[in-house]
């Protein structure tokens, strides 16, 4: 690791008192990253960018937004119509939330595929799940703020889930609402918390990165870094690669933002909240649909709530459920198939969540819920009888074998990491 050097006296003066320049140098410039990271590894930096986008656009929105049941909806329309580029801020924020979830879900599946939750990265994994939970809470409360029909009824349905808690359920719900229904006090506290939680997120993201840089990145081969020949400095290699990913993802984001900004939302949310009119279908935002399907697949209310929370909390025990010593699915023939089936199950659950809870949809969501948990239930056994394929002796050896020698032909390096 090359030491931080500078000739600037100002930088030296500051550095002596607060070693911030060497810190940045250590973590963003010379930080040794495995040389074989593929494009699945872009989604972490993308999630970071999305958090910044949400905070910046959110702060601008908050300058014009009024958290009051009589004015909230109007103030959002004021943002859309009268504030300079208010429409841009608002659509960026609303679609940005969806983009954030797309990125984070892919990031999580990447971790599942390459076994990134295994020792020594369990704490890193836990911090990731905490980030997911905080994001969900933030997005849920944010969706209430425009005070449309879906805001109001979504909030009513979801907060009511807490009434399933035995004995104290109803008191808990009253406490959450700050009254006897979702009303102005609810809107006020949701705004307060919606503003707060993203900053808590920043803190957890820092811990997440701290854990990452302490034990270093996993990689598509899932084998440890054995020495400097296995790594490359973060800058310029991964800075350009992340920049490329960001640009391509930017195109995807922009397509939604500028050409179909309401495609991911519900038309009902353009109707002002009305406690006396219940919409025909109350559906949460798409990123909650798989969990919503699990909730509704259990006939008992308390059971459904427990299953829904279990679907996330089971991720905390994953490092111990998976008994295989091999990390990457690349070398685990059975796990690899299970992984893809699990992805399909999650998509099917999402589809069920968007459908009314009746007839065939209930049956499909019950089967899918069973399979969701079966994935975790089977993992310990797979680890015992699966025969992993032989692991390469080192990252460097695998990269060299799959493409280049010391003098690499043009493009060989790119090919090597694309193959993953």
């Amino acid at each position, binding site marked *: 690791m090359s030491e931080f050097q500078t000739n600037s006296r100002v930088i030296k003066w500051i550095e002596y008192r607060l070693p911030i320049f060497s810190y940045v140098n250590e973590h963003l410039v010379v930080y040794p990253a495995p*040389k074989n990271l593929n494009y699945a590894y872009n989604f972490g930096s993308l999630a970071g960018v999305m958090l910044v986008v949400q905070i910046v656009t959110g702060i601008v929105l908050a300058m014009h937004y009024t958290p009051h049941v009589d004015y909230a909806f*109007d103030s959002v*329309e004021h943002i*859309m*119509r009268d504030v300079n580029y208010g*429409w*841009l801020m608002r*659509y960026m924020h609303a679609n940005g939330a969806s983009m954030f979830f797309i990125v984070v879900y892919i990031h999580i599946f990447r971790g599942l595929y390459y076994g990134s939750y295994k020792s020594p990265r369990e704490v890193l994994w836990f911090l990731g799940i905490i980030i997911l939970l905080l994001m969900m809470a933030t997005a849920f409360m944010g969706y209430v703020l425009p005070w449309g029909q879906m805001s109001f009824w979504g909030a009513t349905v979801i907060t009511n889930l807490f009434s399933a808690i035995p004995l104290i359920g109803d008191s808990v719900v009253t406490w959450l609402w700050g009254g006897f229904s979702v009303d102005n006090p609810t809107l006020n506290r949701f705004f307060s918390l919606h503003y707060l939680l993203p900053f808590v997120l920043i803190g957890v993201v820092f811990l997440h990165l701290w854990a990452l840089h302490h034990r270093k990145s996993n990689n598509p081969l899932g084998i440890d870094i054995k020495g400097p020949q296995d790594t*490359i400095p973060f800058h*310029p*290699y991964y800075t*350009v*690669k992340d*920049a*490329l990913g960001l*640009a*391509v993802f*930017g*195109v995807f984001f*922009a*397509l939604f*933002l*500028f*050409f179909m*900004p*309401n495609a991911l939302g519900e*038309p*009902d949310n*353009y*109707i002002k909240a009305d406690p006396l009119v219940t919409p*025909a*279908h109350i559906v949460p935002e798409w990123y909650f649909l798989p969990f919503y399907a699990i909730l509704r697949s259990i006939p008992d209310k308390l059971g459904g709530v427990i299953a829904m929370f279990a679907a996330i909390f089971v991720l905390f025990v994953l490092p111990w459920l998976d008994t295989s010593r091999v990390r990457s699915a690349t070398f685990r023939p059975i796990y*690899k*198939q299970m992984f*893809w*089936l699990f*992805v*399909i199950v999650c*998509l*099917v659950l*999402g*589809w069920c969540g*968007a*459908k009314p809870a009746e007839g065939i949809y209930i049956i499909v969501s019950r089967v899918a819920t069973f399979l969701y948990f079966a994935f975790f239930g089977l993992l310990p056994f797979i680890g015992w009888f699966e025969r992993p394929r032989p692991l390469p002796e080192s990252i460097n050896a695998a990269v060299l074998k799959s493409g*280049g020698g*010391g*003098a*690499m032909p*043009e*493009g060989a*390096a*790119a090919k090597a*990491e694309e193959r993953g």
Partner: protein
Amino acid sequence: MRGIGKLVVALSIGLGLAGAAAATPAQAAGEARSPLSRDWPHAGPFGTFDRASVQRGMMVYREVCAACHGLEYIAFRNLLEIGLSEDEAKVIAAEYEITDGPDELGDMFERPGKLSDYYPSPFPNDNAARAANGGALPPDLSLVVKARLGGENYIYSLLVGYEDPPAGVELGDTQHYNPYFAGGAISMAPPLFADMVEYPDGTSATVEQMAYDVTNFLTWTAEPKLEARKQLGVKVIIFLVLFSILMYAVKRKVWAGLH
């Protein structure tokens, strides 16, 4: 297991499409007929409002719909955005009576509308609106295009879609049959009849034409920044695509030197 990977991609696309397709007509509650689709001038990445049609639509709103429906998010000054001159907009504003005050004596008073005023609601409150409409509330139209599945196609279909009720459908006294409306029984009488407005530009005022024009107008009221959004979008996409290509080249170059 490339195969399974591909399957997942195919499945997600399939599910997405199925979801989108299923969401459109089915969710509009059970039996509603799926809306007709028309080519809208503001559709597509380069779409812009057809100003002449939007202005005709404003006439339809003013002479027909405004009797029952408000337009609470539109101020008369906004009419300049669809090509009216300041004087024309002032004339339209002055047609409406606006309650203002209190004056020095503490009394409210009526005065003609100004550019800074918003379209006043035709009824003093929701109960009055219901009482005048057989118990049904005529919704404010400012956002209605974005507030219904099917958007402009739905609004257009609703306006041209009135039919005689099929056998077996019971309608209340103030209800009419419209297959595009969820449930079929709507409390709005067919609002449009041929030649009920006289277009100054000579366009023939058929029901379809008026429905088309007023839908264009209501799309503008729902999404007044549509043109700015699409124009900026095209520029941003072009920039990001070029930037991606550049980054791709830079990345190839940087990584080529790696051993």
